[in-house]
């Protein structure tokens, strides 16, 4: 009979934690599919991160439509490394942690639109300030993606710049 010594217990526990960690990492980042045409354009996001930002962004700008994921990838790649790490953590939280705020165990990207809205609202109104701030980052990027486009302006009655665009 194998004796469960203190040393063995620690070793098995370490192996177990490692295996669970590897499994979680695999679970976190697998099962996502991004079209090749989009995947080749990504400079910052992993495909799964792109899908999360695209899904959250779509709900934020709804019922307008714009590719928030690609815009965010291009915009955020210019951020300092520390901010990029924060954004990465935020995306992970939205996908894997935030659904729990509404009692759901699925990934954010696996939820239907109504459930995604509930999750986003839970982040927006979370009692922890930094969580709310994280929502504001997502929101800012989503609305930049939408309202930096001339095509979005007529709907809100905004005539746009007075100087011609070729000046840029």
């Amino acid at each position, binding site marked *: 009979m194998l004796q469960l010594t203190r040393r063995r217990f620690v070793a098995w526990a370490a192996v177990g934690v490692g295996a669970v960690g590897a499994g979680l990492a695999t679970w976190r980042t697998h099962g996502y599919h991004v079209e090749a045409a989009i995947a080749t354009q990504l400079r910052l996001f992993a495909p799964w991160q792109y899908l999360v930002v695209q899904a959250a962004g779509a*709900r*934020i*700008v*709804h*019922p*307008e439509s714009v590719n928030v994921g690609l815009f965010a990838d291009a915009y955020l790649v*210019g951020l*300092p*490394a*520390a901010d990029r790490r924060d954004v990465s953590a935020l995306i992970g939280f939205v996908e894997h942690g935030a659904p729990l705020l509404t009692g759901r165990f699925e990934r954010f990207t696996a939820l239907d639109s109504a459930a995604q*809205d509930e999750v*986003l609202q839970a982040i*927006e*109104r979370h009692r922890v*300030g*930094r969580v*709310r*701030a994280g929502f*504001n*980052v997502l*929101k*800012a990027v*989503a*609305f*930049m993606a*939408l*309202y*930096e486009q001339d095509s*979005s*302006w007529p*709907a*809100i*009655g*905004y005539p*746009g*710049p*007075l*100087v011609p*665009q070729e*000046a*840029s």
Partner: protein
Amino acid sequence: MVDQGRYLEGDRRLTADVAIVGSGAAGAMAASELARRGARVLLLEEGPLVSLRQMTQREGEMRARLYQERGARATIDLAIRVLGGRNVGGSTVHNLDLCKRTPPEILERWARYHQVAGCSPRDLEPVFAAVERQLSVSEVPPREWNRNNQLLATAAVALGWRGNPVHHNRVGCQGSGFCELGCPFDAKQNAAKVLLPEAERFGARVISDVRVQRVVHDGQRARGLDARALDASGQPRAQVRVEAGTVVLAGSAVGSAVVAANSRLPDPHGQLGHGLRLHPGVAVAGLFKEAVEAYRGIPQTYECTEWLDFAEDSARRVWITTVFAHPVGAAVLLPGFGEWHRRWMRRYAHLAVLTAMVHDHSSGHVGVREDGRPRIRYQLELDDSRQLALGIRACARLLFAAGALEVLVPSTPPIVLTRADPIDAIPDDVARPHHIALTSVHPLGTLRMGDDPHRSVVGCSGEHHQIEGLFVLDGSLFPTSIGVPPQISIYAFAKHLAPHVAARIGR
């Protein structure tokens, strides 16, 4: 002619009588005053030179060209956005041209409680007058007010509240309404247009795209600056070493504090970086039946000062004026998302917007993050938060008095009032951080002035208490909040103290 650091090839060693950090209101004024006195002046600006042709009036492009961190700089807890300029001319290129003198009560209090000598209202009166002449400051006539400002003026009169037109430094304004994105019509009489060319006429050299890392000193005297030229994307390139026996920090209360912190200056009393004031502000929107089109015309031409006085222990510390944002800015400030948010954005042209800015008592700190960016810590005190709530209620009253159908307080969750709703129901804690968008455009007071080295970083000449030849001439100097837009105060203090710098180099 501004030299662009992005085109500098190889490491450089430069010499000057005076090296100035920052080209905004303080740096440009100091350069002009010192060059005029015959000093060999070298001014380094971290940001780029932005030509009129590059002023495209597009939010994304202009935020990247004109603002620190593309307009996304914030306190470390992300509760307050802190906007500042990063271009030749600094914040004077994208501010709204408001020209208000430092309130005399504030100057008197600085003398009484902060040992600030030589800066009384009487001392500064001729300086303010000279600055106003230099920058062509004048009152904006009512015919140039846009609808947003007309509504505020109408409401203030209807309520019997104190209010008045404001003064601006603009000439030949086209009323395009894009001031915060830079003026392609060159109407702003700002640091870049008025003062830097003047400094250059007297021989000053201005180099853009150079980030100053630290003041070189030997523990007793300033010796110069260590800096890096930046490429077009802001990445460091060549080393720039400046040998100058006199150095002026004029990079704003945030930027100057960062350079000071990186320079390992003696700080025996732990004052460096402390005393940050932000003038945090909130916006309140009113929905009108008529099209207000607040995105057009001069953004801020009228102020309501009913809730602002500068008496000690005043319970009225809120300054109210108009404000407006272009679509991205408006969308980010509006609460919520999805359908609800879109409904309000569809009313964009029918919104009038007021802002309430608090003359803050809260005090923060600017330090340096691991990656070299500023670490801005600032906790809004309860009393200031209540002042903002007071301001929000006042804005709501003004908007309804002007005829608004609904008033939107952009808190989370949002508060939407109709005319039948009691305004007093807006709670005292409505403006607590992370529950409403708070914005600061006036960081002040991180390298405070005063005769007492235990409570200040620099003396009343602007010279550092311990390092001879190191001067601070920007808004970092201010021992407290000033409660009004600070550009004229900053120009004036730089002009007032520049002779002390000149005296240090025998000019």
